[in-house]
């Protein structure tokens, strides 16, 4: 490629000044970027209005593309199901037969549970769903694991609400715009979820790793052994997530900190359920009247 001749500005003062100003602005841009970066490092929600404004424009497009992709992918899936329908029918019949006894036991246990809880007068809060929506996009080029939800403040989605799928916890809402919300997935490196082991209720923390899996760390005991296949559900500590939502399953046995695979695959999700925070923060107390 031939060298750029434009650097020679000749005798025209106007060209000299405009070239110089261009370089001044280029350096100024870098300085402004550094300042913005410092501001957003120390105050991450600072520019959320701007971000979610843009997201409100991209979300409808992403939703449309999502619907189209789904429609295209449903064709091979439908064909596959058509061929497998007889085998699947037999499998399902066998499974119904197998699980009928367990179902009866479970019903009895559930009834007993209800009765005993009523006796103990435990106050139970059931999480209320806010809206079901789709995860339509994500930040696939950045290391942060955010997903884009196609529901926002107009659908009563507010920051801090937990998001779950049918198979487990997906994450929580971080920022909301008018018709879009940004969800922090449990696999994000800065996500922490308090969990407990289903087997014995041992408390632990599920911290995202950034590679689609989570780290399970024991919190208040040392030398804790984790077996392969240990299941972890949310413990309800902190009041954000309702207790008992499946989070992850341990991949390999280990001690103190092990890798686990989340139950919910956000990409395979048809619909995500946004719920109210399990125990919302109490309203701030009214200001004390001034002493007479």
């Amino acid at each position, binding site marked *: 490629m031939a060298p750029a001749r434009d650097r020679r500005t000749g005798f025209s003062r106007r060209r000299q000044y405009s070239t110089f100003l261009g*370089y001044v602005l*280029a*350096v100024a841009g870098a300085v402004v970027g550094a300042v913005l970066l410092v501001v957003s490092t120390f105050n991450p929600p600072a520019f959320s209005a701007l971000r979610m404004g*843009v997201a409100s424009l991209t979300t409808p497009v992403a939703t449309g593309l999502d619907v189209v992709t789904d429609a295209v992918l449903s064709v091979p899936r439908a064909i596959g199901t058509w061929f497998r329908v007889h085998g699947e029918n037999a499998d399902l019949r066998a499974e119904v037969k197998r699980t009928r006894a367990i179902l009866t036991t479970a019903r009895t246990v559930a009834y007993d549970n209800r009765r005993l809880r009523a006796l103990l007068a435990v106050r139970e809060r059931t999480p209320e769903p806010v809206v079901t929506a789709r995860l339509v996009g994500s930040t696939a*080029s950045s290391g942060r694991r955010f997903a*884009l939800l196609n529901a926002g403040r107009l659908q009563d989605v507010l920051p801090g609400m937990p998001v779950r799928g049918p198979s487990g916890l997906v994450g929580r809402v971080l920022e909301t715009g008018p018709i879009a919300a940004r969800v922090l997935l449990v696999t994000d490196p800065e996500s922490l979820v308090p969990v407990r082991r289903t087997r014995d209720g041992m408390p632990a923390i599920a911290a995202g790793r950034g*590679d689609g899996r989570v780290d399970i760390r024991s919190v208040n005991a040392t030398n804790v052994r984790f077996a392969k296949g240990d299941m972890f559900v949310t413990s309800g500590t902190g009041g954000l997530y309702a207790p008992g939502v499946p989070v992850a399953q341990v991949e390999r046995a280990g001690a103190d900190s092990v890798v686990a695979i989340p139950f919910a695959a956000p990409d395979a999700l048809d619909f995500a359920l946004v719920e109210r925070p399990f125990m919302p923060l109490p309203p701030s107390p009214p200001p004390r009247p001034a002493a007479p």
Partner: protein
Amino acid sequence: MIDRVTRNTIDYRPFEPPLPPGRARALPWGSVLGASALTAVIPVVASLPLMPPLGLIMLLTWRLLARFALRPWAAAPLGLFDDLVSGQPLGSAVLLWSICFIAIDLIEQRLVFRDFWQDWLIASGAIAFCLAIGRWIALPIGAHVDTVLLAQIMVSVMLFPLSARLVAWIDRKRGPAQ
């Protein structure tokens, strides 16, 4: 430039008016913004950061292939838009893309005659720099994304020739630089 490129081909139209200057100048901006937005609207909830930063690749291609298509200060506003959709902390692309532009200017003063391979090398360096520093800014050191980051850099570097063809095509349609 347009004469050299198309005079000998069968679809050479000597009297076709070029794009009006305003639109010709907006095209590079539009293509970079479009590439940034495309990264955000692809309907995949990725669990690994493997998607190449299309906006950055497009910007570097314009800068290296058609030097006067974008002003020297264009990196900052384009980076701002990319930050708004990419999930990185706001300001990281503004800073890193501006640094890339300044660095390419400095390289250009020393390396006046370049061919495509050198362009590719410069773009690879810039992409690796932006992705690595971007990871360092956005994520805690303990995050397990470094192998994936290497793969992402490889994919992005491999995408540069494709982007160069696309930019060359747009630039040819756009007409001579105004």
